[in-house]
């Protein structure tokens, strides 16, 4: 997807060396991070990686054990959730079951002590934006999952927060609705100019929503970057493996020049030639990571570097593309995806011998 422009001059949230301990367990480990005004920042990671704890510290439900959180330049230490310029959309939505949709959405504005007429106007306006205008009188249990999600969103957004925190916002929706809602969320964010911090374990969700992604693992931020950065230039084996699928080969650096490197991998017949330099000590152990869609597959044998020969063991036809598992002579399985561009193509079948190749610019060399 297209990268959105982020105004890097306008830092809105600043997290400085934040650590959170629960007894012996370190949930968030010395995280420093800047989030800019108007962006959608995704915290991506598996369960227990500390992403939700970090979000809850932004909302004020947990206090950092060490470090500082600044929102719009103001230190948030000791400021309770009800005094923060931040609103949160909960994973479970946390709608008040005894209140109607209107009452739920009006709740936050009532706390500000606004006049009745203004509350009613803003609630009606917000319900129109999330297309729930006719559902004001319903109770949450009379709504579908998607409608509840939109009530939760409206309830948080009606307060006009500068920063909206979203905890797995699409987690409870089915796949079709999720895709639709993703784009609605982005539109809404652009329309209202709110800064979003989204927590998710779903990399696809993070890729579509985010202007930048922070990948978290074991309480630490492993990499921060645009979706393209994270996918094409992962900085560690963890990130490469976590985002999308990847073929990784252990290897040894045999030639290290500023403009290119050569690596020998025991699992591959030919050497791997990479058309960019890396910063690693000579003879270092490295990992070569190649994405499945960047590998070409053909029936015709060719000589040279960046090649491998194998036999097709599994085929998964997905419609738009097909996934092949190819067993190399070294018994190593390699994942290759080929787009199904031609309807009448004579497709490669099981147990065919195939020749794999890739461009020198395709592999990523990982040292960590």
């Amino acid at each position: 997807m297209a990268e959105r422009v982020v105004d890097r001059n306008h830092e809105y949230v600043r997290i400085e060396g934040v650590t959170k301990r629960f007894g012996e367990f370190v949930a968030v480990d010395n995280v420093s991070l800047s989030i800019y005004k108007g962006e959608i920042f995704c915290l991506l990671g598996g369960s227990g990686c500390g992403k939700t704890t970090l979000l809850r510290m932004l909302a004020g439900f947990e206090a950092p054990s060490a470090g500082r959180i600044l929102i719009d330049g103001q230190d948030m230490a000791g400021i309770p959730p009800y005094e923060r310029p931040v609103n949160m959309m909960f994973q479970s939505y946390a709608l008040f079951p005894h209140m109607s949709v209107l009452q739920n959405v009006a709740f936050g504005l009532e706390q500000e002590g606004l006049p009745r007429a203004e509350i009613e106007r803003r609630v009606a306006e917000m319900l129109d934006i999330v297309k729930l205008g006719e559902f004001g009188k319903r109770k949450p249990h009379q709504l579908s999952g998607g409608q509840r999600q939109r009530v939760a969103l409206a309830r948080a957004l009606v307060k006009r927060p500068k920063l909206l925190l979203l905890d797995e916002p699409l987690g409870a929706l089915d796949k079709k609705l999720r895709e639709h809602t993703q784009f609605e969320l982005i539109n809404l964010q652009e329309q209202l100019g709110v800064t979003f911090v989204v927590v998710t374990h779903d990399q696809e969700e993070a890729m579509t929503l985010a202007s930048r992604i922070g990948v978290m693992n074991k309480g630490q931020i492993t990499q921060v970057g645009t979706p393209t950065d994270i996918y094409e230039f992962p900085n560690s084996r963890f990130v490469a493996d976590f985002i999308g699928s990847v073929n990784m080969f252990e290897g040894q650096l045999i030639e290290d020049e500023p403009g290119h490197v050569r690596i020998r991998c025991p699992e591959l017949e030919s050497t791997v030639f990479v058309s960019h330099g890396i910063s690693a000590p000579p003879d270092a152990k490295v990992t070569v990571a190649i994405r499945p869609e960047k590998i070409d597959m053909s029936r015709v044998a060719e000589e040279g570097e960046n090649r491998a020969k194998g036999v097709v063991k599994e085929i998964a036809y997905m419609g738009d593309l097909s996934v092949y598992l190819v067993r190399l002579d070294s018994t190593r399985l390699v994942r290759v995806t080929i787009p199904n561009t031609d309807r009448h193509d004579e497709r490669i079948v099981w147990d065919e011998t195939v020749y794999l190749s890739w461009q020198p610019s395709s592999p990523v060399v990982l040292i960590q």
Partner: protein
Amino acid sequence: MRTLIATWRNISRPRNWVIAIPYVWLLAFFAIPFVIVLKISFSSMQPIQPGYAPLWQWVEETQRLVATINVDNYQALWRNNLYVSTFIYSLKVAAVSTVLCLLIGYPMAYAIARSAPTTRNLLLMLIILPFWTSFLLRVYAWVGLLKSNGVINNALLALGWIDQPLTLLYTDFAVYVGIVYSYLPFMILPLYANLEKHDFTLLEAAADLGAKPMTSFFKVTLPLSLPGIVAGCLLVFIPAVGEYVIPSLLGRTDQLMIGTVLSAQFFSARNWPVASAVAIVLLLLLLLPILLFQRYQRRELEAAKR
């Protein structure tokens, strides 16, 4: 007729006999005694056995069945100030005790529901523990605590906080202490059962939307705990109105509660017809809150089903 046959078919099926047991129980130990009491309440006192006049009699001379319905007993209740004031006093004592139980029990139930699961069981155990001793014994123990040379007065005298023993026993205060002490678990347990199910994230959501803790409590926790409050209040109020043991042991001698009057009429005055009328009126008075409670419960159940 068709429904009758259908009912009979249902009854004759052996697997339905299992649920017949509670019905037989209710019939034998509630419905039949109730009808008997109702019958006695419309009869008049008679010095010979069984103590009340029969409601209908076969008169030989006229060859007719004569029924004598006597409403004097009910009129007596209405006309006699003693009964009216006793009923009002009983309702007042029960109402005040219920409110006190709610005020004391709600924070306790809330604290238990919010405590860690391991301590929660211990705390619940402590609430239930008093049931392991006899009710009568526990109420009687309060006599020892409250009397002029009882534990409380002696302690206060020893501390020098008072010069004269306080009159604690045989007062309204003593009755409230007794009822609140005895019925508090009936308030706490339904409240706990309700509060324990509350979703804590709702309070976080309220805080996130700008509500201070007090506002969150009154706008979120309290309305959601209403079913528990209603259940607890009825469980305290209904038995407290007819309470007999506590006011007899701890209460005033110049103002009786209806349970005491009922027992006196039955066993001392041996005026079964009037005593029965008192019992019937008491039942009707209590039927109202019970019906309200049942309607409320049914509504809750329907709401939960949706």
